[in-house]
């Protein structure tokens, strides 16, 4: 009887030991706390949750944001690659939306042709960019973990680790990603992560002449974004997809997709 017990105990201990080793190996090494605390003095990602507000009725379609973004982030100048772009919506009397975006709005917009302008009920500009979703589909599909959501809520790409499979470009419901023609990795808006961590505004927000773009903390009641959220009604793009975007549009027309 005593011998039996011992064997049972042995088997149990073996199982426990294996389980512990396996668990430890999956957890990986613990982060070095000394290094982390040194950096937190200057900028702590934990204290931020960023978002952007876009006031559609203030956008004049000048394309300043598109130009500034391309300069700031070294986006290729060819008119197929954008981290942010502006779309012109024309809604005709059949309530059908016609969207155009020549060169992404880089050179502003040409005036409408006669026949185009005849039957238009209303028309407006909609700036678009990565929505920095709280539940980003692009992060879900990345097979190598090269795109991720930071603690500040910004969705970033690891250039050095991206294999260029384009899954994320297909997965993004907003078309916010593109294949960088030189780096051969996916690329997209980072909320100008290198600027916001230094206390500056993203380039498009800095340059917007009518403050149609508002950047700030989603949680802090003092931020200009929070003020905008209190003052206007808000919409997000494609709410039915449940991606929970952090780019909030104010007074967005129902036709905008």
């Amino acid at each position, binding site marked *: 009887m005593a011998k039996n017990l011992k064997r049972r105990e042995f088997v149990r201990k073996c199982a426990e030991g294996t389980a512990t080793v396996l668990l430890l190996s999956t957890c990986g090494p613990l982060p070095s706390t000394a290094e982390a605390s040194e950096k937190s003095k200057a900028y702590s990602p934990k204290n931020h949750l960023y978002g952007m507000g876009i006031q559609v*009725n203030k956008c004049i379609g000048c394309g300043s944001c598109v130009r500034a973004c391309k300069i700031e982030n070294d986006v290729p100048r060819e008119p197929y690659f954008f981290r942010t772009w502006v779309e012109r919506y024309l809604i005709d009397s059949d309530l059908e939306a016609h969207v155009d975006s020549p060169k992404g709005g880089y050179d502003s917009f040409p005036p409408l042709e006669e026949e185009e302008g005849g039957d238009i009920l209303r028309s407006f500009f909609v700036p678009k960019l990565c929505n920095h979703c709280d539940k980003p589909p692009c992060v879900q599909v990345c097979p190598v*973990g090269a795109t*991720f959501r930071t603690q500040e809520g910004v969705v*970033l790409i690891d*250039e050095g680790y991206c294999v260029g499979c384009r899954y994320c470009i297909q997965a993004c419901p907003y078309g916010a990603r593109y294949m960088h023609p030189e780096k051969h990795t996916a690329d997209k808006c980072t909320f*100008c992560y*290198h600027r916001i961590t230094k206390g*500056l505004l993203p380039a498009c927000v800095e340059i917007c*002449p009518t403050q149609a773009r508002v950047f700030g903390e989603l949680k802090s009641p003092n931020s200009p974004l929070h003020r905008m959220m209190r003052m206007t009604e808000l919409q997000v793009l494609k709410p039915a997809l449940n991606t929970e975007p952090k780019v909030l549009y104010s007074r967005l027309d129902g036709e905008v997709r």
Partner: protein
Amino acid sequence: MKLLRSPSRWDLSIGKWPDQVVRLVIIFGSGLIAAIALRQHFIPETFGELGHFRSIAIEINADHDPKYAGQQTCGECHESQAELKASSYHRLLSCENCHGPSAIHVAEAEAEGFPDTMPELPRSKQVCLNCHSYLRSRPTGFPQIIELMHNPAEPCIKCHDPHDPEPPEVPGACSGCHGQIARTKAISHHSALQCSTCHNAPVEHKQDPRSVAPSKPRERAFCGQCHSKDSQIDPSTLGVDIEAKQIPHIDLNDHGNNYQCWQCHYPHFPEGH
């Protein structure tokens, strides 16, 4: 038989384990070590610290130099321009929108006292027209011009100082945004009437035109105040310099049946159809 018993030499430290268990432990143990070794080899450094990604990628993303210095920085040296701009129509416009990215200019100024790299000084009309050319998609009230009809041969900066672009003639209260209505009304019989005679525009309408709309007359009786045959109104109270009998009068009960007045008469140009 002796050969098969020989592994019993290995169980020196673990007591009297049966051979088959020892063999299993060796096989699983070496498999485990191999798995850990492969994992160490294939999974990159800093992966998994904060999630399913290399946490060093956050630093890589943050490690770029900004090219736009920011509006606050410009005013530190260029005080007079910043002060002039701060009270002008262009107060919301960032310096670098027209002058281009200037972080290098600022860095040189801080290091050497006087910078070598100069920001752009745009002179072309296109820079202004990016924002101010007429597009019907632009918000109502934003100042826009049609280039061909607005001094086509002259550069913008001849008349407008970009730091304080006050137009030579400021549009009035309502006509600033509703220019087409103002121009139509100006040649109509209603030209002498103020907009406020028929519309009551709250102050908020100027700040937020789309969410706070001015009132519009809703009833025939409103027009009847002047145009009904029983009307006792004195035109001078509305600032109109005519006799009461010059106002066209109708009988509200038999004129136009049940139609509203503005279904036939456009109030900003009532003589037209």
